[in-house]
């Protein structure tokens, strides 16, 4: 009786120990934001290749900006161009803080544009403002990234 109870306890503990492994295995590969874990909508997706070469996906520019600020300069940052849906380098993009919510919007309200004229047209049509200078996303690491590329 005593052995049977002990065996039961050991089996139960082994089951408990296995749960985190199983849960983690099931969740791997799910395309959620690497900063806050929310599901990623394609129009606002940001792709960051970190210093180790791993690809990390983010739900919005602000999550990616915050993550880069905490983890240091990555190899590359790609954002989605609003009008075309194509990927562009964050260093050459124009950012607008926008109140517009069309097309799945962006969780943080920041939209990226490949051309300055598109960004200005968006501000005229929907309001908001261009993010420039220190307010520009990734402003802190762009210089570091470009410096590293130059070397």
């Amino acid at each position, binding site marked *: 009786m005593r052995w049977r109870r002990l065996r039961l306890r050991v089996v139960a*503990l082994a089951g408990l120990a296995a749960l985190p492994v199983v*849960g*983690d295995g099931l*969740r791997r590969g799910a395309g959620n934001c690497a900063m806050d874990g929310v599901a990623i909508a394609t129009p606002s997706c940001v792709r960051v290749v970190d210093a180790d070469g791993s690809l990390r996906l983010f739900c919005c520019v*602000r999550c990616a900006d915050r993550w880069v600020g905490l983890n240091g300069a990555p190899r590359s940052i790609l954002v989605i161009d609003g009008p075309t849906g194509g990927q562009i380098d964050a260093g050459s993009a124009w950012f607008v803080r926008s109140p517009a919510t069309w097309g799945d919007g962006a969780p943080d309200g920041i939209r990226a544009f490949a051309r300055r004229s598109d960004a200005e047209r968006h501000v005229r049509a929907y309001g908001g403002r261009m993010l420039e200078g220190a307010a520009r996303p990734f402003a802190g690491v762009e210089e570091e990234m470009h410096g590293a590329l130059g070397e």
Partner: protein
Amino acid sequence: MILNAFSVLAAFAALLRIVLGLIIAGAGLGALRRRSGDGAAAEERGEERYFLLASLGMALVGLGIASWPLLYLVLQSYVPEWPGIMCIEGVTRIGNGSVGAASSLPPLLGVLQVSKPLVVFACGVWIVLHVAGRRARGAHAGRALAALLVCGALATADAVAELAYLGIPKQETTLASGCCSVGSQPASHTGPLANGSTGLLSAAFWSVGVALVATLASGERRLRRMAAGGRWLAMALGLAIASVPLGVAYLGAVAAPAFLRLPHHRCAYCLIAGAPESLLLVALYASGAFAVGWAAVAAWLAPQGSRRPLALPLLRWARFAYVGALLMVGVRMAIP
């Protein structure tokens, strides 16, 4: 009031708890008065009344326990109501900065998050004293009655607070940005703990956890000699009490980022949707702490003959629950 299946169910359960709590309070006070009256007949009437109350008490216990997870299901169901809110953390901030009735929503929710486990603990205390009293053929029934009254009062207060929370309109609040979204995270989510304090917290959590398991493992023999077990049980109770705030802090700051695989996201609420298996870990840890408390109640307040038979299985469960919870955390932290 936001109407959905969970909020309606929670409101109904709260109403039932208020009704049951009031009946128990009224009839319980009457039974206490009768018990203090003269003669064996008065005491017998009191006992009869107590066993009727016990049936109502059992229903209250069931509702009180069910209302704890139900609160979090209600909060989770509120998440889609506000654009930009991503988890319960955001719902807990609805009402911040409001000037109307909505301003009382965050403190009410804070009260509820403390009162729910308190109600469960109080109900457990009553059950321990009730079972002990029955085993001792009615001895110390007054203590069980008093515990039931406290349990009823707590459950009623909790239900009133919950009804108030559910009923207060939540439209007048406006959020500047998301809840758990990084830009609006409070400093506690990424700030003070980021610079090595997590190491200190982890050390404290594991030290208390291991010490508690070791104490519980060594305690069985001592509990057989009940007179020598008092100091040991007080130590176990002290460690169990310390393990609660440590466990809550560790869950949010260290375990949640690991379970969610989001190193910068310190939000225990996100575990509900992001890593549901961790809820079992929380349940085990909480039940371990409760079981030590209930064992102490059994050992110190139950009638002499029923102390050990009640305290031993509770302490065995506490040991198993703590070992299971620590094992789950340890395995998760070990996964690269």
